[in-house]
């Protein structure tokens, strides 16, 4: 470490102060725009939709796009545009919930594992390995089978699936922080482990955690769509992109557009969060200390 920093001071790379590396900016902008679009859809749907997303109309089934039905109707005569708007809420909620659950479990465990590296930490990480070996989607299916399909079950299952990865990242970040002299200085100043974790570790691993969160968000959206498609996610009649895909499958040959829109919506939102995550990683990862 010392050598690296003295090398920097020798002018091989200009000081962090003058030219702070601001990598990943185009990715962050592109990602933010896409995420903002999805977010807007969800917000708009709360106050207004072109038609009722749940009203069926047996006469007007599989209608082509028109002034009344912007994107046409589905097999039950429901307005696709409205369903698409309303359907954006569930993935966002699931993403938020999943990341929340995953971080609430993963971050404390990861930090704990790092700070008690010789004792309890080893056991935490081995337990983590076992959990990680278990596919999150499978866990979700099992939980749905036991408790019945619901958004909450999906969130808990996906959150549990996300937690081991988060714990791993948090642990490696914490180990890095603990190896720095300021962590030693805090110990020498008589500060306990809790203070160390909250005042030194968390702020310094914030960057990599944010990256994890965006990536986790994208995974959660995809997984929610998959679960709904399997009928294990959000139950009807609440609209959801995954369920729209499943409904559309039955009429795929007659009206391919019915699955184009939800498919596109899933793709765009996942792409958005992934781009954002990649951009943030470029900005945060290379050198944690210049990211402020």
């Amino acid at each position, binding site marked *: 470490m010392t050598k690296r920093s003295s090398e920097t001071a020798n002018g091989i790379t200009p000081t962090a102060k003058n030219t702070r590396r601001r990598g990943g900016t185009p990715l962050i902008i592109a990602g933010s725009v896409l995420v903002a679009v999805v977010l807007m859809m969800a917000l708009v749907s709360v106050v207004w939709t072109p038609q009722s997303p749940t009203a069926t109309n047996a006469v007007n089934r599989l209608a082509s796009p028109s002034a009344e039905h912007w994107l046409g109707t589905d097999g039950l005569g429901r307005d696709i545009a409205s369903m698409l708007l309303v359907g954006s809420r569930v993935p966002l909620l699931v993403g938020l919930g999943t990341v929340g659950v995953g971080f609430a479990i993963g971050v404390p465990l990861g930090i704990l594992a790092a700070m008690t590296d010789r004792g309890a930490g080893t056991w935490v990480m081995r337990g983590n390995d076992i959990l990680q070996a278990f596919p999150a989607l499978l866990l979700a299916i099992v939980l749905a089978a036991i408790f019945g399909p619901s958004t909450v079950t999906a969130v808990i299952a996906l959150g549990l699936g996300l937690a081991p990865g988060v714990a791993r990242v948090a642990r490696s970040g914490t180990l890095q922080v603990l190896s720095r002299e300021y962590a030693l*200085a805090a110990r*020498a100043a008589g500060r306990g482990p809790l203070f160390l974790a909250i*005042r030194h570790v968390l702020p310094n691993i914030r960057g990599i955690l944010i990256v994890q969160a965006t990536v986790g968000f994208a995974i959660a959206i995809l997984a929610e769509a998959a679960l709904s498609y399997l009928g294990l996610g959000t139950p009807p009649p609440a609209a959801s992109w995954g369920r729209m895909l499943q409904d559309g499958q039955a009429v795929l040959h007659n009206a391919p557009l019915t699955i184009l829109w939800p498919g596109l919506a899933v793709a765009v939102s996942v792409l958005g969060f992934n781009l954002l995550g990649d951009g943030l990683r470029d900005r945060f990862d290379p050198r944690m200390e210049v990211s402020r």
Partner: protein
Amino acid sequence: MTTSAIAPLLRVENLSVHAGRKQLVKDISFDIMPGERVGLIGESGSGKSLTCLSVLGLLDQGLNAQGRVILGSRRAAAEEESAESQSIDLLSADEDQFSKIRGNRLSMVFQEPMTALNPLMKVGDQLREVIRLHRPRTKQVKAEVIDLLSSVRIPEPARASEVYPHQMSGGQRQRVMLAMAMANGPELLVADEPTTALDVTVQKQVLNLMAEQVERAGSSLLFITHDLGVVSELCDRVIIMRQGRIVESGSIDRVFTTPEHPYTRALLAASALETHPSTGRLLTLESSVETGATALTKVKEAASEAARSSTGTTDFDMPSIDHLADSVDGTDLVYNQSQNPAIRVRDLTRTYGKPGLLGRGRQVEALRGVSFDVTAGQRFGIVGESGCGKSTLLRLLTALDEPTSGYVDVTGERISGGRERHLRWLRETMQIIFQDPMGSLDPRMKVTDIIAEPLRNTDRAERRRRVHELLEQVGLPRSSAEKHPHEFSGGQRQRIAIARALVTKPRVLVADEAVSALDVSVRAQVLNLLQDLVDEYQLTLVFVSHDLNVVRYSCDVVAVMHNGHMVECGHSEAVFDSPRHPYTADLVESIPRLRDRAA
């Protein structure tokens, strides 16, 4: 200009390096003659490394070099008009041309031999690759590799060629780097701080070896360093850079005896740790050299003199200190014994690792039975090279680690084996200053929070008051409190670290290589500050360093450590002037000295 009998090997003309709009190297020009050894000296940010990277075409992306860097035509190959031997402008050379030149006509030794060698390749294979690359028709490469290794005095060269870099010591790795650099008899060897990461005794060996190799191959040398002592031992000519400009250049003897530029004078004074004749304070470098003010500082001289006369130099009743050296039979001596010491250390050992099954585990004895006392108010220096156990000792002294056996008492109370909860008093009584001013300050915290970190149970107003008071004492403006560490230079950051250490008004201050990462001029300032504050707070100082000059200046008593033992201890002057233990003698002998040649 007509071509004289000897054309320069390397001619740098009006070289500038830009990073965006910022000019880092400003229009510098110099020549290097065939066989000449040139030292390029400067502090952090002076542009010396950028200069050498431009010569090698290794500048980072985003940095832009202008001007001309001409590598002269190969001396022996006047008739042989191959592209390889013609004179060439290195700044406009493409990657193809460079790959023919680098490692062949130009070669480089880096600062950190561990990272410069490929950790996954055997040493012999790495050397073989360099030879094969530029001389594909070489027969008997293996023999040549072994020759090279033995020429850099690696013991058992045949065996050494079969090991991986991590199995070698730092000094050995740097020798391998040197062997690689010299493998194809380069015309110019560029060395960027090649011995900075090494211990003094090893540094001396590597420097001697480098001089010998360069001489034998008839190469020129461009040696980049911040250490004036090293340059004076190795080079013929010296170029001094500051803020991207050359401020002075000339023969070593001339520059070091009659420096013309005030900056050079100041640099010389600061590196020799010269003290002001009347105040006894270190001479430092004013940041305003360029504005024409004299470089030798008069800053705060009057003030400090007043401070000194009012407090008086700390006159503790210092017991006479026996100058003891380790006896040959190895019985444990108690060094610097005293009745009622601030720190008492007895039979301290620390062993890392576990004895594995069947005795196959790896055990490292970092500390093998150390006993000494530090009297209250004493300035106790501990010197030794890397791996001698001084860092381990320091961690035990500060209760950041537990000893395997033995104990440490601080102000009469046992700290070894105590639980962290019972050590609260110690965390206020004893404070530490770490080596790396970048790493020891949390980049996410504001300076005020950093300084106040050791304070417990104090209200906001009191914390604020203490922080401001300390900022003032360490010579930083109050506005610093709301800034983050990256907004400060290395020396300023070390001041912040000192402020943090003093915020609890400790009685014992432990400094771990506290000035090693700083430039010489800044080093003098920080040492002066430290001395003032030690006086003012009447601290007991334990100063750990590998730099013997610094310890000699800043400590009353010095202990020398070697292989986990303390081998000698006594008054600083006595130990350094008449060392009793052969290791101390060796250590003292190895310090690069400024005036050796000039005298």
